[in-house]
């Protein structure tokens, strides 16, 4: 396969084995620029592991992960983030003791070294960015609230906002609407559509209605491999997919 592509993310022959168990098994995955890709699959299919490997949390046994044609597998986590890969965790992962403003402020991509952080000034540029992101995620009125006091849905949005502060070119979201109310789901779907305008997004999700609403393309994973890939309709009518996943 060619080593230089137009894809934002090109994963080739990726394998990770835990004591002989292959959680990801020779997986190939390509994500286009500005694409919103949804990954579905039964529990234990390796969806979260895949995201963990892209952001560096889990190290691969073999294979390659290229982000904008640059090999990521050799880089530590923080360097991958600086290249433009953002990751949202499954459970809302925010700083509960800090205010919403501070949560967004520390996510601003400046002053990332030790000395940089010591001399970092919260200037107008930062404040403008924080307030524009806060408006985007619907938390503009709660900037001074301690993040731990937010509702579950707001916490999820806050974490997405923290990622938006970094302007990532690839955003990975692990079950962003888990535990959200119907209204919150709708708002999140709109938010995802807006933020995928100028970046690629990978979403793991179980809620089929939600997937239908947002996905450009769906990838179905099963036992560490890709079972099917394509539009939602195509995937839903695929007999093997119905067999392992949708048929249950």
């Amino acid at each position, binding site marked *: 396969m060619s080593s230089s592509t137009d894809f934002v993310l090109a994963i080739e022959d990726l394998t990770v084995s835990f004591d002989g168990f292959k959680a990801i098994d020779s997986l190939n995955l390509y994500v286009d620029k500005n694409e919103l890709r949804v990954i579905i699959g039964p529990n234990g299919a390796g969806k979260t592991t895949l995201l963990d490997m892209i952001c560096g949390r889990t190290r691969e046994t073999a294979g390659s992960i290229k982000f904008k044609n640059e090999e990521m597998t050799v880089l530590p986590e923080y360097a991958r983030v600086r290249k433009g890969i*953002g990751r949202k965790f499954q459970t809302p992962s925010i*700083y509960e003791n800090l205010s919403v403003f501070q949560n967004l402020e*520390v996510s601003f991509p400046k002053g990332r*070294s030790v000395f940089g*952080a*010591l001399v970092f000034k919260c200037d107008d540029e930062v404040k403008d960015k924080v307030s524009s992101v806060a408006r985007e995620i619907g938390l503009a009125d709660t900037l001074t609230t301690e993040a731990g006091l937010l509702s579950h849905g707001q916490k999820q949005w806050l974490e997405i906002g*923290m990622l938006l502060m970094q302007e990532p070119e690839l955003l990975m979201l692990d079950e962003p609407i888990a535990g959200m109310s119907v209204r919150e789901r709708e708002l999140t779907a709109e938010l995802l559509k807006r933020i995928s305008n100028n970046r690629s997004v990978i979403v793991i999700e179980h809620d089929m209605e939600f997937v239908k609403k947002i996905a450009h393309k769906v990838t179905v994973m099963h036992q560490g491999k890709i079972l099917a890939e394509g539009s939602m309709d195509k995937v839903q009518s695929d007999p093997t997919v119905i067999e392992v996943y949708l048929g249950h």
Partner: protein
Amino acid sequence: MQSFKNLLKQPGVLSIAILAVILLVVFPALLDNFRLNLVGKYLTYAFVAIGLVVLWGWGGILSLGQGVFFGLGGYCMAMFLKLEASDPITTKIQSTPGIPDFMDWNQLTELPLWWLPFKSLTFSLIAVIAVPSLLAFIVSYAMFKRRVGGVYFAIITQAVALIMTTLIIGMQGYTGGVNGMTDLKTMSGWDTRTDEAKIILYYACCLTLLLCVIAGTFIQRSKFGTLLLAMRDKEDRVRFSGYDVSMFKVAAFCLAAGVSGVGGAFFALQVGFMSPSFVGIVPSIELVILCAVGGRLSLVGAVYGALLVNASKTLFSENFPDLWLFLMAALFIGVTMAFPYGLAGLFESHIKPWWIRKSTERRMIKQRLIELEIEAAFEAAQEVQADSASAIAVPSANDAAELVIRRSAP
């Protein structure tokens, strides 16, 4: 005046100002020289305690080996002082004059090479901060890059404390062994044992400590401080926000070590000796307790914690020689059980709200009094109005109220 008032209103400034007044004015005014010198000694532990606030309170990294850095700073200072105290004339009865007495007792015939730089005061002062920081860097870099943390890190720091004590005691000829370095007399010719010198050292110690507290406050308000709190809460989130978490931890550890070293140096200067009994596991744990009692989230609280714990230690051991260890234990257990965030936490959760409540009440009473006065004036004016046939010449009720308001305004 207005800008001064505004400065005091900034969070943290008032508490530092109060601490400064207590240390620089109240203590010297109330205490005799002996007690003041004792307070000076307690304050040297406060350096370690504020280092622990940054490291443990904010960063969530518990180190049970801070005595090592306190000791290293102290030894660096003590080596300089010892060399000065060992000039060839005062040590002429030794078989090798001009070297520290303990070297002579251990059959050393010349000054070891690594002792030579400590003849320079400048070098020694730099070493007081640099040597502990360097060791801290080596230990913590090796640990944090491998993601060793939490309880494992605490155990390793404790092992470092044990190793350091064993090393110091074992290398008697080079370090003075278990007795440490004693008979420290002068610093660049200035006698540190006179009453006057002790007072000067006390003030120097206080000022340096206050400087460290101010620097700590600066760190707390910087992004570095926010990141420490963030790391304590959700380390992975910080890492996946593009930060090299391990380097931040290393920096916090080195910072705490450097500050502890300064404390150790002041200890050697004020007390006049340095020994391995301030390096090992037990003193290291005691230092953590100082910080816990004072409140591990508050720099100023840590200073009060150091003062209170050490003062009670002295008080108990003077008055109840048989019981003092139990009393100390009771103090530690009591404080940490009743107030998990120490004295500073007690202040934040009880005294401050109480004070705010009281002052709101006072304000409300004052306001009610003014209202009553206005009402009274209003009624009086109405009476006058009713009495008089023409209402034009008489001040209206509004005028009366206005008058009262103007009068009662500060």
